[in-house]
């Protein structure tokens, strides 16, 4: 831990998360992965939106940006395109990323912009005290789903892959070692990477749904997670009620900011003297 402690703003601790919350474990896994890769802390920007997850950057000793709800990836896109040499990491939650920020999420994935997104999925809006999110499983309770959630939930891995993310993985706060390994690989992928980290919310999700103590919730992660490699040889019956963890997708493709820089180089060679903008403009449309 001593090695990774230097990446924390120690004077900002203790954090505001509830006892038993999984978000500290996820943040720890990110920091250990950064420490392992020996990344330059002056060249890392961590961006977040709003919610419990989004308080994480405040505790980290990098340039950190706590933005508006759902918009972390849009702010991060501006940073990364401006300074492709920076390592840009987004820390987000299930509501922040897939509800209010869903559009930014699919478009960041589509562009394959080199941003590592760590989504802390606690299946609930914690900061506003327990409303259902797009990742609350059907039938589960929330303060805005008092009779059970009637909506279907997103499978973030499938969503990410379909939208164009080039690295997609999932782990849980229980599988902290695996989580660290997956984040490390995500940080190394030069493109849009998504790591979904299931994180227990004992205060709202757990209590509302009678899931027991934080330890009970982590035990549930342990008992219901199946590594995708193991799942490959398991029968559908055996996989019933389980969820997959591990590396779901790893398929590098050209990265957006690099492509833009290459295009700009070509343009600059062609127009070496700037004359001031003057051209015809198209007229119509809304």
């Amino acid at each position, binding site marked *: 831990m001593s090695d990774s402690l230097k990446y924390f703003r120690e004077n900002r601790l203790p954090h505001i998360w509830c006892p038993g919350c999984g978000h500290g474990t996820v943040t720890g896994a990110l920091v250990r992965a950064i420490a392992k890769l020996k990344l330059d802390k002056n060249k890392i920007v961590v961006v977040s939106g709003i919610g419990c997850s989004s308080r994480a950057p405040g505790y980290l000793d990098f*340039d950190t*940006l706590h*933005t508006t709800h759902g*918009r972390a990836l849009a702010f991060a*896109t501006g940073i990364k395109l*401006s*300074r492709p040499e920076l390592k840009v990491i987004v820390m987000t939650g299930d509501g922040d990323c897939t509800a209010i920020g869903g559009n930014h999420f699919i478009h960041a994935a589509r562009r394959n912009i080199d941003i590592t997104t760590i989504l802390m999925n606690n299946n609930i809006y914690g900061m506003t005290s327990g409303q259902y999110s797009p990742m609350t499983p059907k039938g589960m309770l929330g303060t805005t789903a008092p009779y059970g959630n009637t909506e279907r939930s997103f499978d973030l891995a499938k969503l990410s892959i379909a939208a164009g993310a080039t690295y997609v993985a999932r782990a849980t706060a229980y599988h902290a070692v695996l989580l660290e390994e997956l984040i490390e690989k995500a940080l190394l992928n030069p493109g849009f990477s998504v790591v979904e980290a299931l994180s227990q919310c004992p205060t709202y999700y757990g209590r509302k749904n009678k899931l027991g103590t934080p330890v009970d919730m982590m035990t549930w992660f342990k008992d219901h997670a199946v590594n995708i490699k193991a799942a490959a040889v398991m029968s559908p019956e055996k996989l019933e009620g389980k969820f997959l963890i591990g590396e779901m997708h790893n398929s590098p493709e050209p990265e957006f900011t690099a492509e833009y820089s290459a295009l700009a180089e070509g343009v*600059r060679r062609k127009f070496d003297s*700037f004359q001031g903008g003057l051209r015809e403009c198209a007229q119509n449309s809304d």
Partner: protein
Amino acid sequence: MPSVKLMQGNEACTLGALTAGLDFFAGYPITPSTEIAELCAEELPKVGGKFIQMEDEIASMAAIIGASLTGRKAMTATSGPGFSLMQENIGYASLAEVPVVIINVQRVGPSTGMPTSPSQGEVMQARWGTHGDHPVVVLAPGNVKECFDLTVKAFNIAEDYRIPVVVLTDEVIGHMREKVVLPDFETVKVTRRKAPASPGGYKPYEADPDGGVPLMASFGQGYRYHVTGLFHDETGFPSNRGDVADVLIRRLMKKVENAEPLIRDYATESIEDCEILVVAFGSSAMSSLSAVRQARAKGIKVGLFRPKTIWPFPEEPLRELSSQVKRVIVPEMNLGQLVLEIERVIGCRAPVERLSKVNGELFKPEEILFVIMGGEK
């Protein structure tokens, strides 16, 4: 060398931005502002800048704030519906003190309204569109040349005071082409935010003793500081303390209050002996100018006061002028927005008459002339 060009308002805004050092644009297509995005897409890669078409205007505003935090001069351009979507992040830029420029080419609203017709319906939205008390500066060009000049000025104000600055034009000015004498770009005054000397002891939100504006470090330079939309103390970290919040919001508002005499900008015509005063901005001022000239030709003592900074409003000069006149006429392409500020400034020194137009057409000079001549509105 100064050069003479036939240029569109939207082109002039873009050229002004480039002259001011624009090197990052994020935007989303919307009539009647789209030409600005198109030009930026074409020009920015030539000068080492970056252009991106985002998925919506919320994202565009977010992206330019992110870009500005890395030291870039960043801008977006939009129109009514897009401007509405940008409001939350404009508030973020106000509170987090991130310099950005937004060009809003007004069309008729609310909602989708009349996309290809001009309006001045966003006077109040430009000032108060985002929630909470917040500093913002709004500039209103009255012709194509001023689109160039005021966009340069917008960047300078944004950089000097670390605030979002809105350039408020409309469909007529945005799309009309006119003869413009452009200055030698090298001679245009361009400023840049003041940066700290070194990371040691850097407090990102500590008011600089010289001017009260905190020094701004760029991300990626070793300062490792925190930026948040929560109320925060000098260190940039969130604080729930009422006294901290009070100090912060008052300091933010004070920045613009103190700047007002320095950034104040307005034009006048025939005011020396005027007994009737027309107060108009933007494209309404073009019609007003024509009306004032026609009235003068008939021997009527009428003048024009045309604010170019509309927020903060140039109070002092208008208040002074209003003491000498018997009537004030305010033509606006809305149902009465800037007139509320004008009435506040003038008080009971002179009666203020509103002249409104919301049919998507520019005022005809004779409509204003009619009122100057004493006709019923």
